[in-house]
């Protein structure tokens, strides 16, 4: 039986690739998914599967559809508030369940901010994407960070310095001001701060450092 991630990849293969090459792509996916620890990024996965199917020109479209399905499923499965941006179950997160049980404090702050801003779960990813676009010029790095912040798997946390974390939080605030207004943005930030301060790890990592 397919799990959530499998189902998304299968559906994307069926939507994007020609029927004649779908088998090749799915076989490559089966090879990929044997070792969860070596699972590539969504961008890399798209390239590999399209290359295996002999349609490298479709890699960008494949990636776009994969991302759309990924976030759509997240929203569909999410309950209001914080649940809206909790990581969806995947082979990797299942494999490293313990590590993922405690996402990095910075990711908690970001998710809490977004959850407060978009209690219904909608548009949270748009806000995050907009904020990262402000903070991080490099596209690939931006997408990696976006995926990490959404999925929150501690095992693959990209290196992100304090200045960059500050820039991300500030980008989120500015994006939130433009999307929903400064009052809601201030409230969301205050809520996120309270939530992170309640975490015992905040004694070592005060959340004020990200402001």
């Amino acid at each position, binding site marked *: 039986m397919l799990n959530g991630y499998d189902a998304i990849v299968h559906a994307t293969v069926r939507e994007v690739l020609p029927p004649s090459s779908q088998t090749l792509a799915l076989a490559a996916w089966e090879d990929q998914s044997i070792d969860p620890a070596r699972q590539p990024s969504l961008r890399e996965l798209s390239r590999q599967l399209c290359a295996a199917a002999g349609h490298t020109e479709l890699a960008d479209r494949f990636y776009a559809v994969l991302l759309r399905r990924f976030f759509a499923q997240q929203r569909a499965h999410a309950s209001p508030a914080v649940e809206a941006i909790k990581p969806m179950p995947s082979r990797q997160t299942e494999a490293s369940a313990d590590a993922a049980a405690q996402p990095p404090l910075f990711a908690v702050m970001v998710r809490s901010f977004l959850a407060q801003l978009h209690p219904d779960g909608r548009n949270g990813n748009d806000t995050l994407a907009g904020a990262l676009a402000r903070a991080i010029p490099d596209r690939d790095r931006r997408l990696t960070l976006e995926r990490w912040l959404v999925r929150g798997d501690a095992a693959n946390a990209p290196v992100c310095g304090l200045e960059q974390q500050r820039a991300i939080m500030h980008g989120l605030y500015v994006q939130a001001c*433009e999307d929903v207004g400064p009052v809601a943005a201030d409230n969301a*930030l205050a809520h996120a701060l309270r939530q992170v301060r309640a975490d015992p790890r905040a004694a070592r990592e005060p959340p004020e450092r990200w402001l």
Partner: protein
Amino acid sequence: MYADRYRLLLPAVLAALLVPGPALATDTDSLRIAVDTVWMITAGILVFFMQAGFALLESGMARAKNTVNVLMKNYTDVCFGSIAFFAVGYGLMFGSNPSGWVGEDHFLLLRGEQLDYGLLFFQTMFAATAATIVSGAMAERTRYRGYIIGSVFIMGLIYPIFGAWAWGSLYDGNGWLKRMGFIDFAGSTVVHSVGAWCALAGVLAVGPRLGRFSSDSRPRHIPGHSLPLVALGGFILWFGWFGFNGGSVAKADASIGLIVLNTHLAAAAGVAGAAFTLLLLRRPLLATMLVNGSIGGLVSITAGAASMSPSFALLTGLIAGAVVIVAGELLLSLRIDDVVGAVPVHGFCGVWGTLAAGLFLDGRLFDPQQMLVQIIGVGAAFLWSFPTAYLLFWAIAKLGGLRCTTHQEQRGLDYTEHYELAYPEFQRQPLHPAIEDAVGDRATQEVRRAERV
């Protein structure tokens, strides 16, 4: 009771009759000058107290994270501006003015006489009022230094030059507007509109606050942090205005009664006018709007407080209340972010009040000749102060000193500009390294430690 009082006064009157005539006249003149001076100084002190009203009103309408910044601007613009007005402004405004355009002497009051000192004090408070109007409009995104530089130029240059046209000179010659018969008793246009047009220029130069308008240009409400401060500020301004208008007679005589009554009635009617307008527009009766309505009424009566009957003062204030609401909506539709509503209150109501002073002039109601002069005065105020102030703020912006960064807007100007918080018990922010040890805040020290690592 009255018989007793007359019995007590009788010996004094008899004694006065016994002294030689010229000496009596001299004593009476001295007494009159002394009483006039005491009244003018008292009125000046009341006008100075209006600074506290502005500070409370503006800080209450700002968010908590910008409170100290607003207070500091209100506190220090008076200080730097007063020096500028003493050094340059008074001479430009009230010095000998044979050309009718600008005063040419009495800088630094080098040739002052005894009466000049009281007048300079009183007029300095007026100049400070014009400058401080700007701070509320530009609050929450304007850098402290940029604002202070702007206020020095407003008090030292922009305000006095228009003042010279309408009120100059005290010594020799008259301003060209004064010669035309322009009526602006205590400064609806000279003080309030000039301040408001400078504020409008500043607001346009600095731009709206982050997120004030949505992408489809709809305004977003950003409530202030303390309505009690707003209400208290409104009351203090109302209180101080009795000195603002009453002191403008520059002498202690019976005319003060009419002026103070008109002032009070217009303020009360301003609230009523704002409330009626809000009800007509099916809007809630917001406290900030009603307080602004009262100030709009006060601004509007300032021009004609001495020259119209109380019933017309009431009408003037009533219309001013409506002007505050309608002009506020107009600014929002133009995407102009005026935090406290200074431009509708001081600018538009100043214009209305100056026109009303011509319309309802006692004995010459609806005189078209007078109305023409009033319109010329109002137009001249805008054409002088708005472009000059825009140029000033544009130059400050170009030098990088006007608009704060978005990060400063996020953190608040209290922390990023002053390293002080208005409510430290409720606002947990790292403080400046120089004072963090003294404060001993654990979170602050942790952050600094982490940053060092």
